[in-house]
C-alpha cells in the first residue's frame, strides 16, 4: 500500500480510534436530548472512519509482513553474495594451482625432449607430409587446405588470367547489322 509509505502508522491508528469513539459517542449522545439530533451524523461518520481504520490496519499488518519477508530475503541475498565470492576465490585458487602444475610438468617434458630426444635428431628425418598433417591438425584445417611452407607451390595461372583486362567493345558492335 503506497499510502502507508507516505503517512506514519499512528495516523491510521488514530482514524480507527476516532471512528470507534464516534460510534460510541453517537450512541451515547442519543440519550442527551439537547444534542440527540447530532447522534446520527456522528454515528455515520463513526462507521465510515471505523471501516477506513480497519482497512488500513489490515494494510499495515500486511505491509509489516511483507517488510519482514523483504528483510529476510535481503539477508539471504547478502549471504548468497558472500558465498558466491567464496566460490569465486575457490575456483580461482584451483585454476591458478592447476595451471601452474600444467606449466611445470610441460616444462619438465620439454627439458627432457631437449636433453634426450635431441640425441635422435640426426637419425630421424621428419617428412613434409607429417609436418603438414601436424599443422593442419593444430590449426583445425583440412589437409587439402593450403598450408604455406617455403616449398609450397601456388598456382597463379587463374589469378594472372583474371588480372588481364578484357578487350573493350564499342556499343556499335552490339547493334544489329
Amino acid at each position, binding site marked *: *500500500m*503506497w*499510502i502507508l*509509505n507516505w503517512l506514519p502508522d499512528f495516523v491510521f491508528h488514530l482514524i480507527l480510534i476516532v471512528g470507534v469513539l464516534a460510534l460510541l459517542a453517537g450512541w451515547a449522545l442519543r440519550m442527551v436530548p439537547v444534542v440527540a439530533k447530532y447522534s446520527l451524523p456522528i454515528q455515520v461518520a463513526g462507521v465510515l472512519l471505523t471501516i*477506513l481504520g480497519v*482497512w*488500513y490496519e489490515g*494494510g499495515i499488518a500486511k505491509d509489516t509482513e*511483507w517488510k519482514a*519477508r*523483504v528483510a529476510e*530475503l*535481503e539477508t*539471504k*541475498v547478502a549471504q*548468497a*553474495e558472500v*558465498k*558466491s565470492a567464496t*566460490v*569465486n576465490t*575457490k*575456483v*580461482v585458487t*584451483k*585454476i*591458478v594451482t*592447476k*595451471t601452474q602444475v*600444467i*606449466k611445470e*610438468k*610441460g616444462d619438465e*617434458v*620439454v627439458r627432457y*625432449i*631437449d636433453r634426450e*630426444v*635431441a640425441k*635422435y*635428431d640426426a*637419425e*630421424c628425418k*621428419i617428412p*613434409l607430409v*607429417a*609436418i603438414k598433417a*601436424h*599443422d593442419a591438425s*593444430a*590449426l583445425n584445417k583440412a589437409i587439402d587446405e593450403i598450408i*604455406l*611452407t*617455403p*616449398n609450397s607451390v601456388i598456382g597463379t595461372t587463374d589469378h594472372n588470367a583474371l588480372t588481364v583486362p578484357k578487350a573493350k567493345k564499342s556499343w556499335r558492335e552490339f547493334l544489329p547489322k
Partner: protein
Amino acid sequence: MARIFTKVITLSLLGIILTGCSTTVPVKRTFPVVPELLLKECEPLNTINKPEVKLSELMDTVSKNYSKYHSCAAVTDAWQEWYKEQKKVFDEVN
C-alpha cells in the same frame, strides 16, 4: 443534492480502494561476477610452419600444444565447477 452526495461517496470509496494498490518490493539480486581468469580465451596451438624440422623440435611443439590443451581444459572444468556452485548458492535463496 443526492446525486452529488452519491458521487462523492463513490469517489471516496474508489479513492480508498486505490490506496490498497501495492508497490513493487525492491529486492535486487546481482548476477555473480565471473573471475577474469575464466574469461581468458584458449591460446591457438603452435604450428611448425617450415619444411624441415628436427625430431626434438617437433616433439617440443607437440608437447607445448598438449600443455595448451590441458590449460584450456582446466579452464573449462573450472567454468563447470563455477556454474554448479553458483547455481547451488542461487537456489538456496529462493
